[in-house]
């Protein structure tokens, strides 16, 4: 096990985070604050509470999830895309480091950053609305699991992308719609029955539902299923990464 190698990648990536602290932390915090002002305070004050939770509090888990997803994907994809773009990937490929160790370094750093951002948003949200966390351990578990899973997904996108445009397209065209339609701002029970069925094909529904359960004990789908689906998605990402390294897809020519 090349522990020094993992550590080197992890610290290198974290250094990038600290160097870009303003856009890393400030921008998600700012955008989330805007959501709270618009949806939580302005619109939320005229909305009925959902499942006994005030609307302002109801959107907190969804908003954190929204940031976790986009941040995890963008950090991890950027982390592995940059060496490909600048050409410094030669060093990674010629180093005595295995695929798993490489992934631990990059994904670990991206996930760490996501967890930090999630925590900061949680604290920011507390300034706008009053909420409690019923199952803190599960809350942390979902936070970490989602960060890791979507950092893995981001890693795959970073390997796949061969232009900055492609790097943006998946988060923008697929993840953001899924996150918005995944019940970040509403309970899917509010949808007509047909659309409720469709919504169950959206993986984000399970993440948001499970995460919201850890806050308020209410969920759109059973928390066990939420957990199961998250793990399933994580396994799918791991399988894709295993395939990437085995075949050298877009990394080795």
């Amino acid at each position: 096990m090349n522990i020094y190698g993992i550590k080197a990648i992890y610290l290198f990536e974290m250094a990038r985070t600290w160097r870009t602290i303003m856009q890393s932390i400030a921008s998600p915090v700012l955008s989330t604050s805007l959501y709270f002002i618009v949806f939580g305070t302005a619109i939320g004050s005229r909305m009925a509470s959902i499942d006994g939770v005030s609307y302002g509090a109801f959107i907190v888990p969804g908003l954190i999830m929204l940031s976790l997803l986009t941040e995890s994907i963008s950090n991890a994809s950027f982390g592995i895309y940059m060496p490909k773009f600048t050409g410094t990937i030669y060093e990674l490929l010629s180093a005595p480091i295995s695929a798993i160790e490489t992934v631990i370094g990059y994904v670990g750093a991206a996930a760490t950053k996501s967890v930090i951002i999630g925590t900061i948003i949680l604290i920011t949200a507390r300034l706008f609305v009053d909420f409690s966390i019923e199952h803190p351990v599960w809350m942390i578990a979902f936070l970490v699991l989602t960060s890791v899973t979507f950092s893995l997904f981001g890693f795959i996108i970073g390997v796949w992308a061969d232009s900055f445009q492609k790097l943006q397209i998946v988060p923008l065209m697929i993840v953001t719609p899924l996150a918005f339609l995944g019940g970040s701002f509403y309970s899917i029970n509010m949808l007509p029955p047909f659309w409720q069925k469709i919504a169950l094909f959206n993986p984000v529904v399970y993440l948001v539902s499970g995460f919201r359960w850890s806050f308020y004990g209410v969920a759109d789908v059973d928390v066990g299923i939420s957990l199961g689906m998250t793990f399933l998605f994580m396994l799918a990402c791991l399988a894709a990464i295993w395939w990437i390294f085995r075949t050298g897809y877009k990394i080795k020519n």
Partner: protein
Amino acid sequence: MKPLDHSRMPESPGASAPIISVSGLSKTYASGFQALRSIDLEIRRGEIFALLGPNGAGKTTLISIICGIVNPSTGTVTADGHDIVGDYRPARTKIGLVPQELTTDAFESVWATVSFSRGLFGKPANPAYIEKILKDLSLWEKKDTKIMALSGGMKRRVMIAKALSHEPKILFLDEPTAGVDVELRRDMWNMVRGLRESGVTIILTTHYIEEAEEMADRIGVINKGEIVLVEDKHTLMQKLGKKQLTLHLQSPLTALPPDLQSEHLQLSADGADLVYTFDTQSEETGIATLLRRLNEHGIDFKDLRTSESSLEDIFVSLVRGRS
């Protein structure tokens, strides 16, 4: 307790074995381009080996395979006895690579990027060693500078520092002096010699023949994915090197006097130059005799020059001969 002095330790049984052994190595890219055709090559421990070849000959592909950047199609490579695929960790730990392109991070400091490389190659941090490398490469002053603020030559030094950061036993330099100014080139040559003295095996690719001539112990010529020859540099120069004496005549000749005719002496087409070819290595070059006899014939010359076939001529004739 005194530290172990490696230079005085008895040589291990494998010490004379080649440090890199390439056998039957072929590479066909997905595009169908066959970059390497069944290469066999052995690099001796502690030597400077220059791999010469025109652009597109397969130099970089060969190096990239040995370093693990490109997957081989067929064949095997061992580095210090370790298979580069099956046993890649010990193999790669021993290898340092300075690639051809100036590929560096932009926002990291010199110190950070070199330390990163050491960690990546599985070595614990050793600030004293990094400091030594940076000082040796005249980078110490720049250690906190962001890489993007460095000149091209400085970036090249950073890449060498990165390659040396994990104390490799084998160093690959892919076109190390392409686009490098004279001063840096001389520094680099000195550095390479210093490394060899410390026991590092160096493989460099170049298309500057003078570089190979200046530095290498042995020379390999690669063309169209095949190793054309591998030879000790001096043997190669001796075998194929020729010297020519050109005499620019006072007045053109229409023909050589019959008793001067020989395979070594030729009259140029316009009759203005006499070209005498002789073996650089032989004791008796025959120049004195030639000049005396020209004098006897009353053939005067106003200028003369001698030229030695360089590695370049040898190289060009080899590569041309094959194509």
